[in-house]
C-alpha cells in the first residue's frame, strides 16, 4: 500500500500558517474510541467479538508456560496476573535502575525473559511479545493511566515532550502539528485523533492484526517522510513517556480496536 502524499502536502501547507502547538485542555481530551463508528466501538467493547482478544488469550497461555534454562513461567514469580498485573501497564514506561533509563512494558517483559527465564529474547513486534504485552495490559483495562511520579523519569519525559513538538521529515511536521493543533479535523477521509496511547497493543483494521504503539509511531514518522527510529529506540520510549503523561487519567482500553 502506498501513502497519499498529496493529502499530507496539503495539510503541511495549511499548517505552515498555524500557530505554535497548544496543549489540549483536559475537558477536551478524547480517546480515539470516541471518534469511531458505533459498530467499531461495539467490536472493541464486546470481548467475545474483539479480534484483539486472540492475542490476549495467547498471552494468557504464554504466561503459564515454563520457559528458558531456568524452566520458570511468568506465573511462577508473578502468580495470578489478574492480581499481580492489575494497573501495571497503566504505569509504564518505568525507570529501570540497572539500565539507568526508562523501559517500556514490552522491554520489561523481554528483560524478564532473558534474565529470569534465561530464554531467547522475544523480538519486538513478534506475536509472542505482543501477546504477553496485550495480556498484561488487558489486566489494566478500564483503569486510569497513572504515570509514575519518579523524578528520575523527568529528563526523559521532557525529551519526549520536546520530540513531540519538533517538526521532522520532508513534510516538516511535528506530532503536535496534527494531534494538538488539528485533532477532530479531517486528513483524507479520516478524522485526526488526539494520539492518546490508551489501547495498545491494539487491533488496527488497517493492519488486520494487533500491533504495538511503537509500530504506530513508526508509521507516523514514515508518513511525514522521516526516517523512523528503530523498534526499541530510547527516543520512542521517551515519546511514550510524554504520551502517557499527556493521557494521564484516561482509561486503558487494551486491546482497543482502531480503523
Amino acid at each position: 500500500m502506498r501513502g497519499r502524499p498529496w493529502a499530507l502536502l496539503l495539510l503541511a501547507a495549511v499548517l505552515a500558517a498555524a500557530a505554535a502547538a497548544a496543549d489540549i485542555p483536559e475537558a477536551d481530551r478524547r480517546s480515539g474510541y470516541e471518534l469511531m463508528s458505533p459498530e467499531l466501538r461495539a467490536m472493541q467493547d464486546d470481548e467475545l467479538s474483539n479480534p484483539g482478544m486472540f492475542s490476549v488469550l495467547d498471552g494468557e497461555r504464554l504466561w503459564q508456560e515454563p520457559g528458558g534454562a531456568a524452566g520458570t513461567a511468568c506465573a511462577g514469580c508473578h502468580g495470578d496476573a489478574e492480581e499481580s498485573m492489575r494497573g501495571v501497564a497503566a504505569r509504564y514506561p518505568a525507570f529501570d535502575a540497572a539500565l539507568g533509563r526508562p523501559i517500556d512494558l514490552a522491554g520489561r517483559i523481554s528483560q524478564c525473559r532473558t534474565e529470569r527465564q534465561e530464554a531467547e529474547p522475544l523480538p519486538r513486534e513478534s506475536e509472542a511479545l505482543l501477546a504477553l504485552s496485550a495480556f498484561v495490559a488487558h489486566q489494566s483495562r478500564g483503569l486510569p493511566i497513572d504515570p509514575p511520579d519518579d523524578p528520575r523519569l523527568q529528563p526523559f519525559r521532557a525529551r519526549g515532550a520536546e520530540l513531540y513538538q519538533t517538526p521532522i521529515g520532508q513534510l516538516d511536521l511535528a506530532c503536535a502539528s496534527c494531534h494538538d493543533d488539528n485533532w477532530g479535523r479531517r486528513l483524507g477521509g479520516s478524522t485526526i485523533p488526539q494520539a492518546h496511547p490508551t489501547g495498545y497493543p491494539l487491533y488496527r483494521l488497517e493492519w488486520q492484526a494487533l500491533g504495538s504503539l511503537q509500530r504506530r509511531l513508526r508509521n507516523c514518522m514514515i508518513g511525514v517522510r522521516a526516517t523512523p527510529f528503530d523498534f526499541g529506540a530510547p527516543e520512542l520510549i521517551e515519546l511514550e513517556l510524554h504520551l502517557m503523561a499527556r493521557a494521564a487519567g484516561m482509561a486503558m482500553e487494551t486491546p482497543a480496536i482502531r480503523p
Partner: protein
Amino acid sequence: MRTLINVPKTANKGEIVEIRAMIAHPMETGYRTGENGVPIPRRIIHRFTCSFAGREIFAADLFPAMSANPFLAFTTIATQSGSFTFTWTDEDGTTQSAAAEITVT
C-alpha cells in the same frame, strides 16, 4: 485453539439464542505482497459449520472478501441441553473445531 465462541450457558426451552463464533485466521486473499514485494500466498477458510446434537443448524461458504479473523453470528431455537460443535475448513483441507455447551430448562 484460537477461537472465540459466544453461546449462552443457559436458555429456556423454545427461546431464540444468538450464537457468535470467531476464529483467528488471516483469510489471506493471495493478492497482497509482503516485505520486498514478495506475494503472500492465498490462505482461505472456505467452509464453516455449526451443529447441535449432531445435526447441522448453520453453515457458510466463505470467500476472500470475508474479513481476517472471520466472525459469524446467527440464531437457533433452544430445544434441549447439549453441545454445539463448530468447524472451520481451509481450502488446503485442514479443519479446526470447537465446542460449546448449553443447558436448556
